[in-house]
Each structure stands twice: as structure tokens, then as C-alpha cells.
């Protein structure tokens, strides 16, 4: 076979990750504080899914003058209207804030904007979300995130010990908080797709973490006398190659989506890419280290008989 397998870290990587956890803690703590400050100070740029309002995407035969369009639409006095280039130089996306509570007003506003955009504009997409629907979607989105976090943590608790579940939850909350912070800082639109991205990030990040935890559990049985910090460090290093490989393949796929997938889902893809990066970071540098904070984590070596354990499934 002509193909020479490529390796990232030689045959057995051995980095001092757990002993130097203070750096990661300081970094993560400041990132979370930064994210929270940004969230409070800047807030999220909620999309029309959550705020109610309208969106119109049009394509012109030639590149339009956006400033001119903005002037025309602003003259309609519809409140907050954003006009931006969307993907192609010929494409324009117009967002109109919600017009009072009457649906009728909204419909009129859409008609007015369409008229102002001119006859040569090909309407590619219009969306309208009423205020009640927006509120409901906001609520459903929040419930979905909480339910997913709860479900994932419950599963980890079921499969491991509670210390793992708590550490996993902290790593997960860390990823979600920092991702929300990124949206606050960049002002990227936070919409339903973002919520879907958050859930996916949560699933992916815990996926990485679980693989590390799995190895911790295995090593706890294997190296019964090794000190916990060094054992955790060994576990992280054992799984490091896999963690990086999977992140790279996922990032390759998402990179293809970001480059070629079109403008409509670009923000969604960016959120996912960010989430993969932060999720990989937290699985390697944070999650396992957090296990050290539990005084009785050594007891995990001899699992208590009353804790639920699913026998490891095997294929033959």
C-alpha cells in the first residue's frame, strides 16, 4: 500500500495538560466572564424568529446601489430597517422590524418595501413572523436547550458517576455560554437556527467529553495506584489523537458547508464551527481537570454496588 498513515502526535502523546490546568481555568473563567459581560452590555441581535418582523431577499440583474435603496426604504418610516448585501453583490436582504401588533400593518409594510425596492428586483424569499409566534418560538427554543442539557447530563449520570455528570455539565455550560457570548460580541443574528446549532454543539461537545471520561474510567480500573492528576493526564493524552482527528474531520465537512453551502445557512455553519473548536478545547483542557475538584472521585475506582452500571456492550 502506497499510502503512509499520518500521525499527529507520534505514537504516544504525553503533554502536561492536567498539571497546567490553572492556565486553562484562568482562560475559561475570563472567557465566560467576558461572554456574560457582553451579553448584558450588548445583548443579542435577535432574529425575526424571536422578535417578530419581516425579511425580504431580492436579487437584482446588476449590482444595486445599497445606499440609494436604504434611502428609499427609510423614507417609508417603518422604524428599524436593515439592508445588507447577502452573499452575492446582486443580492440584498432587507429586515423590517415588527409593525405594531396588527398583522395587517405588517403585510402593508412588506408591500411598501417591495414597491420601494423597484420592479427589477426578483423576490427570492419573504418571511414574516407575528409577535405571538415570536414569543412562542423564543420560549420553545429556551426549553429545547434546557431539555437537551438535562437529557445529556442525565445520560452521563446514568452511564458514569455523578461527579462525571457534574463535570460534563460544567464543560457543556462553558461551551454554550461562550458561544452565546460570541453572538453578543459579533452581533451575529441569533435565531432558531442558532438554537439548533447550540443543541448540536452541546451534543458534540459532550460526545468529546464522554470519550475522555470513558478512558478515565478505564484507566481508573487499570492503574489502581496512580495518582489522580497523572492518571487524568494520561487519559486526556490517550484520547488526544482521537479528539483532534474527529474535530478535524468535522471541521473539514463544516468548512465545505461554509464555503459552498450558500448564504442562507452561513451563520449556522459559523456557529457550528465555533462550537466544535470550543467543545474540543473544553474536552481536552477543562472537563477532565474538573474531575480533580471532587474530593471523593477516587472512590470511583471501586464503583459502589448501588450505582447503576450498564455492562459494556460487545460485538462478536
Amino acid at each position: 500500500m502506497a499510502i503512509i498513515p499520518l500521525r499527529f502526535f507520534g505514537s504516544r502523546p504525553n503533554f502536561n495538560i492536567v498539571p497546567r490546568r490553572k492556565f486553562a481555568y484562568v482562560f475559561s473563567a475570563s472567557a465566560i466572564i467576558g461572554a456574560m459581560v457582553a451579553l448584558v452590555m450588548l445583548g443579542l441581535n435577535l432574529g425575526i424568529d424571536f422578535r417578530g418582523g419581516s425579511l425580504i431577499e431580492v436579487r437584482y440583474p446588476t449590482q444595486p446601489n445599497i445606499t440609494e435603496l436604504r434611502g428609499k426604504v427609510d423614507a417609508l418610516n417603518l422604524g428599524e430597517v436593515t439592508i445588507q448585501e447577502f452573499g452575492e453583490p446582486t443580492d440584498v436582504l432587507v429586515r423590517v422590524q415588527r409593525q405594531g401588533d396588527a398583522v395587517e400593518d405588517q403585510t402593508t409594510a412588506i408591500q411598501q418595501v417591495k414597491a420601494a425596492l423597484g420592479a427589477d428586483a426578483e423576490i427570492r424569499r419573504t418571511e414574516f413572523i407575528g409577535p405571538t409566534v415570536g414569543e412562542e418560538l423564543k420560549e420553545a427554543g429556551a426549553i429545547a436547550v434546557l431539555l437537551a442539557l438535562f437529557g445529556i447530563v442525565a445520560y452521563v449520570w446514568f452511564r458514569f458517576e455523578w461527579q462525571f455528570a457534574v463535570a460534563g455539565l460544567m464543560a457543556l455550560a462553558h461551551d454554550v455560554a461562550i458561544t452565546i457570548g460570541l453572538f453578543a460580541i459579533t452581533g451575529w443574528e441569533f435565531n432558531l437556527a442558532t438554537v439548533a446549532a447550540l443543541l448540536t454543539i452541546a451534543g458534540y461537545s459532550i460526545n468529546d467529553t464522554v470519550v475522555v471520561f470513558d478512558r478515565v474510567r478505564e484507566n481508573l480500573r487499570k492503574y489502581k495506584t496512580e495518582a489522580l492528576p497523572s492518571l487524568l493526564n494520561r487519559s486526556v493524552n490517550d484520547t488526544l489523537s482521537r479528539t483532534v482527528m474527529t474535530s478535524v474531520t468535522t471541521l473539514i465537512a463544516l468548512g465545505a458547508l461554509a464555503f459552498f453551502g450558500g448564504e442562507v445557512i452561513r451563520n449556522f455553519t459559523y456557529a457550528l464551527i465555533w462550537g466544535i473548536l470550543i467543545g474540543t478545547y473544553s474536552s481536552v483542557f477543562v472537563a477532565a481537570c474538573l474531575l480533580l475538584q471532587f474530593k471523593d472521585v477516587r472512590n470511583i475506582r471501586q464503583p459502589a454496588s448501588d450505582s447503576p452500571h450498564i455492562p459494556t456492550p460487545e460485538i462478536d
Partner: protein
Amino acid sequence: MLYIEKWKAALIVLICALGVAYSSPNFWRSATAVDDSGIPGWLPNKTVSLGLDLQGGVHLLLQVDIAAGVRSRAAAFEDTVRQSLRGTGIRRTPPERGGAAVKFRTLDPNDAERAADLIQENDPSAVVTIGEAGEITVGFTETDEERLRLAMLTQTIEIIRRRVDALGTKEPIIQRQGDDRIVVQVPGFDEPEVLKKIIGTTAQLAFRLVDTTSDPSTFVARPGLERLPQALTDEQKATTPRPPPSQYFVVRNSPVVPGALLIDAQPSFQDSRPVVSFRFNGAGARRFLDLTGRHIGEPLAIVLDNEIISAPTIQAAIGANGIITGQFSVPETQRLSLLLRSGALPAPVEFIQEASIGPGLGKDSIEAGKIACIVAFLAVALFMSVSYGLFGVFAAFALILNGGMIIGALSALQATLTLPGIAGIVLTIGMAVDANVLIFERIREELSIGQSPVAAIDSGYRRALSSIIDSQVTTLIAAVILFAMGSGPIRGFSVTLTIGIVTSLFTAIFLTRLMVVIWLRRAPRRTSLPI
């Protein structure tokens, strides 16, 4: 040791073949084709059904104002009160509507009980109560009101279906959502405004006499009379700002011939002007003949949803057939006759969510999604091959088959593929190889501690399994919750993510294992592995 029973190997191959077979129609048959001739019926022939965001179309969410419908139904109790007390000598105030009931009082408080009894006798299904101040309320029982609400929703859906069907588009979807909402999806339709006009118009038609004795400009509200505006033309409605109605009419509340008695309405012409011709059923014809016969020479208002379309003068007694004149364009007469044929909505509706995607954008999204998928497949396959050598090639082959199986599963289940759904497929491509990565890393590790190749492969597959399952289940939990809570396009994401996780587990674990085992058997005495 490493051995796969024959029937298991056959099963693995069979499942892969089925996946590919079910995905195959997507490659030789376009999603819009209807011609199935020449294809044996037993072959899989379903293609992936595309969501509105990919094929273009209009999605509407309607809120049905059932309370308003119930209120207007309750107005019928006015007639019950009048009829029940006619000729009984009981003097009363005019019945007034209040909520889902009608209220009045007798001038002589001692009559109240008798009046209530008479009404109850006349309409046993009504709930008649006498308040402390002697006010009599006639309303629905709770079960009747509940039944009425349900019937109204069902009827509204039915009427909307008739109207949408008349557009002649392919496979529109009209579904109830919750207690008072309706989802309407019309694929391949590009004119949301037209659709909203067709669905959203109540189309309550009535013929009422104009009260020529009152002056609309100085009209003060009086029982039995009502002031209604003249309908704006489409042209006026489209201009901004919308002009206020220029003309009002005062019309009588009775007699009325309701449009519900129509059995047909067609667009037509009179003196080369577009009109709507209609036909009444027997009861309608009798009432219309009676009304027109007694009021020749007076103006008759044609009222649609509390707006006056026109008020022509009655020339002669008319029976079953008539025409509606007005400031119509041809499309308007077509629309109006469709609305009259399909019947009036029992309750008003409001559009609370709307999305319309033009065919151009949908096509572009499919193109972009296809390219992203192919690039992601090739790049990940190449990367796996470079990283893990021959074993990586096995994984890459499994990945390609996995893609076929995802499309096959989507086609067989007739799940809807949306743009976020394509994103879900691409994401799964990246994550699908995770199981192989876990296994291969484990094999490398086992080799590095001095295991023989066969033993390393064996324990690699065996030991990685717990991690694989744990890690995929967590993603599955997130996907399932997304499916339960999400709607529309986002739900499509959770569908492909879920399918992708399941199929990738299959191909990554079973298929690659089969390939490795077959490869090993060809040269059982290997001392090293290309990994």
C-alpha cells in the same frame, strides 16, 4: 477471534444494498417527475421529498379567531328570542349580543320567567338564564360550545382545502396545529399575496336592503340598521397610504338573503364588464324572489365581509339566478366566484407566520448543498485515507456508502429534506467517521503495546464500542429534542442528523469490520497493519 458468521456478513451486505437501492431513484429520476411508466412497481421509486425551502413555495400559519366565530353564531339567538316571544304580548328590550350569548330584559319583570320558558321550549339546546336584575341571557351549553369550536376548526380547514385545491398546485398541505391554528403549505407556488387573499377572505356574502331614508353621513347607530363602507378596489388597496372608504351605505339588518344559500358562482361578463353570476338553491331562490319581488325599484346592497361591493337597483323579481356587479377586474371575479363556491369561513382567520421561497432560491440552495456535500465527502474520505492508510480507505468507502444509505432512508421514510437538513448530512459526514477514528486509534494503541495485528483489531473494535455508543447517544439526545421542539426547516436538520447517526454507526462499525475481516483472511499471517 476475528470471524463473522456467513449470515451476518450477508445481512450487512443486504442492508447496504437496500440503502443504495432506495437512494438510486434520486439519481435517475428528477424530483418532479410523475411519469412512472416503464419502471417495475416493485423497484424502489420514491425520491427524497424536498422541503419548501428547497423546492420553493408558500408556508402560512393561520390563527382562527374561534371566539369571534362563536360570537357570530350566538347572534342567531336574536332570532330565537324574536320568534319565541312573537305574539305572546311580552314586551321586551331589543336583544343585544354579548360574548357568546344574547341578552335582553322584559319590560315587566314578572314576564321574565315566562319569556325564559318560551325560549327554552323553542330551542331546547340553548341555555337560558335569568340574572338578578331580571336580565335574560340565551347562550350555548358548555358541551355545545366545545363541539361548535371543534366543528368550526374542521370546517375552516375543509373550506381552505377547497379553495387551495382550486389553485391546481401539486400536493398542498393543510393541517390543524393545536386548538386554533392551521398550517397551509403550497409547494411550487410563488405568490403569497394571492394565496393569502384566497385563504384569508371570510367571504360572508349577504344581500341586504339599503335604507334610503337615512343619510349615511349623519347616521347614528339605531337597532335594525347598520352603516357599512363601500369596498375598496384592489388598486386602491395596493396604494400607500390606503385611502379611507369614500362612500358609506346604511343597510337594514333584515330581511337578509345569506350567501350560504348559493350553490354555484362563476365568473362571467355583462355588457363586456366582468361580473359574477350565481345560482341559489331552492330555499335561497324562494327567499330571493320574495325579497326582490317586494322591493322593486329599491337599491339592494351586495355585502361581502361587511363591505358593500355594489348596490344596484332591483329591476324585477329575481329567483334562482342572478349576477353580482361591481368594480371588478377579471381576476377578481374569478377569485370571488371561487370564494363563493367554496363557502364562507365560519370564523375569521389571521396570518401569524409566513414564509415564501422563490423557485430560484430553492434551486440555488439545492445546488449549493450538493456541492457542499460532495466536497465534504471527498475531503473527509481523502483525509481518512491519508491518516489511516488502507484502513482509512475502508472507512472512506464506508462513508460513501453511508451517504447512499442516508439518502435511501430519507427516500424510503419520505422524510422531508430541508436546507438545514442538508447541513445535517454534511455535519454527519464529518462526525460519521468518529466511530472509525475511535476504533483505529484503539487498534494503533493496542499495536503499540505489542499486541499481534489480529488481537489488536479484535480488541480495537471491542473496546472502542462503549465510547462509540456513549458519544453517539449524547448527540442523538440533542437531535431528538430538536425534532420534538423544532419546526419546519430546523426539524429537517434533526431528521438528517438522527438518520445519519444511525446509518453511520452501522457502516462504521459493521461494514468496516466486514471489510477488515475479509482483507485479513486473504493473508492471515500478517505481522504489521497498514494503519
